[in-house]
């Protein structure tokens, strides 16, 4: 399993709002022996706004990166961000149609041929690397920490496009956390939208949608939420005080990236996992894991 090597697309939030996701993703993959080769000079995939403007433009912004990944000789490109993943996958899928590909290529410097396969880092770890191998590498159990795994709305949906896990009740992150020694609780809202895309222009929507999620996580008895999306994580962590206030929720819940907790279980030093970047303090959870 040490020869797993993929092109890596970090996505814009990795260099801005989710540095801790980026750092812990790299640390975890390194520890597992998964080689992430960053796409040289990658650019923005268009994120959520581009597809709301035009599908060819959106595919071209992603297509530039797919072409660069193909040039590296890889057949898989992995990204930590589900929002990037949807764009890359949509672009790759639609470019199977030569007519559409022609339109995209008219916007690009260098034409993009048949595309490489975009996957989430989660999918690469769970499917290509394998849970059994992860289990073998766990050094420090998460000590039964109760976690609510939150996948976000688009990691597995729509199923024909994403082709990963169950669209309504995905379990890959739950299984991974279990392998790391945590205790995933049933979390009925694991694929419900948190409202991230309207966060700034329509804060009222985020308060309501993220409020529902936090409430459900609290009621599930979780000690922490585990996220796999930089936008969701930011909504639930950075905005948590606002959201709690708007919805009358008392208790604060730390919101980890799954790579941060997995990194702990693999025995990586805390400084590589950047817990200091989390807004809701993870101290109590970390102590619980350490067994203090």
């Amino acid at each position, binding site marked *: 399993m040490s020869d797993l090597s993929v092109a890596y697309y970090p996505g814009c939030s990795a260099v801005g709002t989710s540095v801790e996701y980026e750092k812990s993703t790299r640390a975890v993959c390194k520890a597992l022996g998964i080689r992430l080769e960053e796409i040289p000079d990658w650019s923005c995939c268009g994120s959520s706004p581009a597809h709301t403007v035009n599908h060819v*433009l959106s595919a071209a912004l992603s297509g530039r990166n797919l072409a660069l990944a193909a040039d590296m000789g890889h057949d898989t490109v992995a990204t930590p961000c589900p929002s990037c993943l949807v764009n890359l996958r949509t672009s790759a899928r639609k470019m199977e149609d030569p007519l559409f590909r022609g339109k995209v290529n008219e916007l690009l410097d260098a034409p993009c041929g048949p595309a490489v396969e975009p996957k989430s880092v989660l999918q690469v770890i769970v499917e290509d690397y394998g849970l059994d191998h992860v289990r073998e590498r766990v050094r420090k159990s998460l000590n039964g920490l109760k976690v609510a795994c939150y996948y976000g709305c688009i990691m597995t949906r729509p199923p024909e496009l994403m082709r990963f896990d169950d669209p309504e009740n995905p379990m890959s992150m739950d299984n991974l956390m279990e392998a790391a020694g945590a205790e995933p609780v049933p979390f009925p809202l694991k694929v419900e939208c948190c409202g991230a895309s309207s966060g700034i222009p329509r804060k009222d929507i985020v308060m309501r949608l993220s409020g529902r999620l936090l409430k459900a996580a609290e009621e599930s008895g979780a000690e922490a939420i585990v996220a796999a999306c930089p936008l969701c994580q930011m909504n639930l962590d950075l905005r948590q005080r606002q959201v709690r206030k708007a919805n009358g929720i008392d208790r604060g819940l730390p919101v980890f990236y799954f790579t941060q907790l997995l990194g702990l279980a693999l025995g990586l030093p805390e400084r590589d996992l950047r817990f200091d970047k989390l807004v809701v303090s993870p101290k109590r959870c970390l102590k619980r894991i350490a067994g203090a």
Partner: protein
Amino acid sequence: MKTTNMNARDAEFIHEVEERSGQQVVRCYQCGNCTAGCPYNFAYDIPVNRIMRLVQTGQKEVVLDSKSLWLCGSCQSCTTRCPNNIDVARIMDVLRHMARETGHASERNIKLFADTFLESVEKHGRVYEAGLMASYVAQTGKFLNDLDLAPAVLTKGKLSLKPHPVHKREAVEEIFLRFREKSKQ
């Protein structure tokens, strides 16, 4: 509730939506599954199954004027749950494109945010969050909304204060330039 004038059926509109989305709206039989799972329904002026019905009946103006198109979070719940395999979220996307092109923008700030975001990408090759926020705030005066986040944002270094441009910035700029050229044709 607004009444619908069934005589004003714009057949060309129906055709255009179907063509651009690659979906057959005629297949919708109004089961309401899409609306039942739509997390944004509470904020919509027209629920998504009704949008589908209004497209079926060619009500172009009512549809393109709807706030729902702009509020849709593309969460894919409707598409995942439609019993007739209609990619409903894609239709919402296409309707938003058409609303843009015809000057309908019933949620101005959402459109403005998307525009500002893409301008940032065009200029830097990657999103430059601090610049994006500054520009959005300058145009809407809406910062007060989130002022309470400032301490956390700053102490946790959540917003990079410098852009992270790609080396071949022009390559991305060119994509936008060519796109605008093509759109004019």
